[in-house]
């Protein structure tokens, strides 16, 4: 049964299974385990980014395609929902419409980019997507009439999903039973479905072909696989999933903006997540996403403490100044690439099967 759900891709390591289980349980019961706005915020963010990172890993880890346009697709989903909610009257319909529209648009754009540039090899694709993404970002800020430009859009979602809506009186284990709770479980559930879906894809015959292409596209073509078709399809698929994740994110935040949904920082974050977690295994994406979001949210507190203790020493306090948290995240991440070359997952399951290296 479990095998079927996980598409036969078992963690194959007690430690890994444990970590994954912990993450899953914490997310599943976040509202009750850690009451409070901040922690729920974090949990939702983690869910969404797990889905996003997973969709990126399909491209990066399995198809070996480096794309910098992924957050663009993420953004399309987000803006899809935002614009729908902005321009249709409040209710669940706009949410659905926006989500679908976003996913379709993303897939379509991916198709175009793919057909146009997947003939050329990895690096080129990377830079082309980089350029396209930046162009789109500019476009978004240009069309401020529609997209709200740099400032983005704050929009209203169905009342059932806002704190204002209480479906039961009182609290359950410190969590007030309101729309926000529902909203969270929508996000969590959605992300879970996306993740499992992707897990199935990468373990399907299709997924295997992608790995083969990553290994040696020339030969893959020679044994009868239409490389461009496969690459493009993979790109579309992961674009669509990214868009879905984006929609969830927008629903949760009730806000979209260039920085939030399309920013290059997010692109970097996703890269970090996938690599830190371990490329070519979706579990890696999950772990990476969790780690990174936690770091982003709580690193500053830790440092503030550290700065206190080192006060007086030369330079150190400056380095430990909470405002310098990025510095440490950067170091952390560089280090992680060396100490877990195959990501956390690779570390946890010490090279059981010789999985594809890039």
């Amino acid at each position, binding site marked *: 049964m479990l095998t079927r759900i996980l598409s036969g891709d078992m963690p194959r390591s007690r430690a890994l299974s444990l970590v994954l289980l912990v993450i899953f349980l914490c997310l599943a019961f976040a509202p009750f385990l850690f009451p409070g706005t901040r922690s729920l915020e974090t949990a939702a963010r983690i869910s969404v980014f797990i889905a996003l990172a997973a969709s990126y890993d399909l491209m*990066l880890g399995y198809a070996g395609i*480096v794309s910098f346009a992924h957050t663009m697709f993420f953004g399309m989903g987000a803006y899809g929902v935002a614009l729908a909610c902005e321009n249709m009257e409040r209710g669940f319909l706009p949410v659905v419409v926006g989500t679908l529209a976003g996913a379709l648009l993303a897939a379509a754009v991916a198709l175009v980019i793919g057909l*146009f*540039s997947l*003939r*050329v*090899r*990895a*690096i*080129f694709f*990377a*830079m*082309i997507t*980089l*350029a*396209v993404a*930046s*162009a789109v970002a*500019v*476009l978004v800020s*240009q069309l401020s009439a529609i997209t709200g430009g740099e400032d983005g859009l704050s929009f209203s979602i169905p009342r059932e999903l806002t704190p204002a809506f209480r479906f039961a009186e009182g609290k359950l284990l410190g969590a007030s039973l309101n729309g926000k709770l529902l909203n969270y479980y929508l996000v969590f559930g959605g992300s879970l479905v996306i993740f499992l879906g992707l897990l199935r894809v990468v373990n399907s015959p299709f997924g295997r072909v992608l790995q083969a292409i990553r290994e040696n596209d020339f030969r893959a073509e020679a044994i009868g696989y239409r490389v461009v078709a496969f690459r493009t399809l993979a790109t579309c698929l992961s674009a669509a999933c990214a868009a879905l994740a984006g929609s969830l994110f927008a629903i949760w935040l009730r806000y979209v903006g260039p920085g939030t949904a399309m920013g290059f920082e997010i692109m*970097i974050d996703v*890269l*970090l997540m996938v*690599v830190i977690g371990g*490329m070519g295994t979706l579990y890696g994406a999950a772990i990476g996403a969790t780690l990174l979001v936690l770091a982003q949210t709580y690193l500053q507190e830790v440092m503030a403490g550290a700065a206190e203790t080192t006060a007086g020493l030369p*330079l150190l306090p*400056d*380095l430990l100044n909470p*405002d*310098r948290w*990025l*510095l440490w*995240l*950067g*170091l952390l*991440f*560089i280090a992680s*690439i*060396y100490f877990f*070359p195959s990501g956390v997952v690779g570390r946890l399951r010490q090279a059981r099967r010789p999985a594809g290296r*890039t």
Partner: protein
Amino acid sequence: MTELAPEHRPTFSRASLADRLSPHAPVLLLLALAALGWLAIDQQSSWLTLTVSGLAMGMMIFTMAAGMTLVFGLMDVINFGHGAFVSVGAFVGVTALMLMPGMTAEASIWLNGFAVLLAVACAMLATGVMGYAFERVIVRPVYGAHLKQILVTMGGLIVVEQLIYVLWGPVEIFIERPAAFQGAITFAGAALEKYRLVAVALGLVVFLALRLTLKRTRIGLIVRAGVENGEMVQALGYRIERVFIGVFVAGSALAGLGGVMWGLYEQVITAHMGQETMILVFIVIIIGGLGSVEGCFIAALMVGLLQNYVAFLAPKAALISNIGLMAAILMWRPQGMTPVVKAK
């Protein structure tokens, strides 16, 4: 012993015109672009101004991109940290300049020029050393693994930028150019900024220097060969990693130079100024073709010109002009104009 060999006379037919022209196509394209601009823009003076400043801009982009093509094309290392080197170069150089107000205050080509050269030297030294550290600590373990390179150098970028904040503080620094390089000389009704002329000169020097070293020495060959098959290069007797370090350091130093030039052009420097120029740099490198200094050079000039022409004729279109150019070129030559190494 020749009689032993089978006579081997492959049949040759005359190569078509296209085949013989194609090597020169990029240059022709550049000229064509300039000519087009001349036709489209009615005021002669405007055209002159735009062209000269476009070329200058191209030269500056080139100096920033050169280091990257070198490293990227030759060593097949995508150094996203390059931007950070540009920033550091700018900060060091500018700081150096500020330390010699005596030489920059009054307008004397020699004094000012010398001051700038000093600043450049400092910057290149600093970025060079940094490059050394970068190669050792950051890039070394990830040769051949593009993804990790992208990531790890990206990490490097973040760290270096943050360090700049730590050392120079978060405030952007505004600076004045040395007196001699301020203002413009008017010529045929066109105002040609003095500084841009300097930029043109510097850019040319860099270009020629690079060309010479790559043509005259084996370094280019060693590195290119080393990327494909490092073991074999060593088996031939070359200390591949030393050469790699050398190239990387050179590339970083060039970034430093670019940084100073860019900083003096912008007259304001920020920690992320380098990173902001990167997209442009990438576009230039792609258009030029990986690893090709010539390609990069021509591409940079093209971008510079096109940007100015379009911005003058149809400002709205300026946004996408570069990307458009890139798309067009890639349709025509998917590997870029004059690729030295194939995109892997």
